[in-house]
């Protein structure tokens, strides 16, 4: 029962940060929210009994891809943040 509550609140958090990632005007906030979606999805994989997938998602989805997004943002920074 406790794990069901954790899973449901995790789902709500995932959906909220996904909407934030897609809709916010600030690109930095959007990239961080996309990383947050991946991070919480990796906790979800752990609850779904998939530790291998959780490790991969935590290292790649929320680590490396966020870094790549930030390199690109730094490259194109300062023009239009719309």
């Amino acid at each position, binding site marked *: 029962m406790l794990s069901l509550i954790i899973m449901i609140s995790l*789902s709500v958090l995932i*959906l909220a940060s*996904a909407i934030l990632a*897609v809709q916010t005007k600030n690109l930095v906030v959007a990239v961080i929210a996309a990383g947050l979606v991946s991070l919480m999805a990796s906790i979800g994989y752990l609850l779904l009994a998939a530790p291998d997938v959780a490790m991969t998602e935590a290292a790649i*989805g929320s680590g490396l891809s966020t870094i790549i997004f930030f390199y690109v943002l730094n490259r194109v920074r300062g023009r239009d943040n719309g």
Partner: protein
Amino acid sequence: MDFGQIAVSVGFLLILIGVWGILTQKNIIKIVIGFSVFDTGLHMIMVGIGYVKGGTAPILDGAIAPGTAPINIVAGIVDPVPQALVLTAIVIGLGVTALMLAYVVRLYEDRKSLDISSYEDLKW
């Protein structure tokens, strides 16, 4: 409601959010972010489909020698095949995201703009 159903429905909603972002956003980087949200949704659906009620991770203990008590193993673990597929899909997802971002850098070098509506060479 079990975990599998929750994960599958969250995955479908994430795909809808991602498509919404891809179709409505003007900034190219926001479109790439939409793709990455879409990716995460697909992975959640695949892992959720493989979940079995009350199953543990598909890792056998050293105590269970091969050949003994196979019925026990089958009853106790979740489906390992979708997990193996998602493992490769995540890595490919990073490669594809990096490729899209390389295109973004290249387009920005050309036109100095991130707005998708300023690239209308093929518009008719």
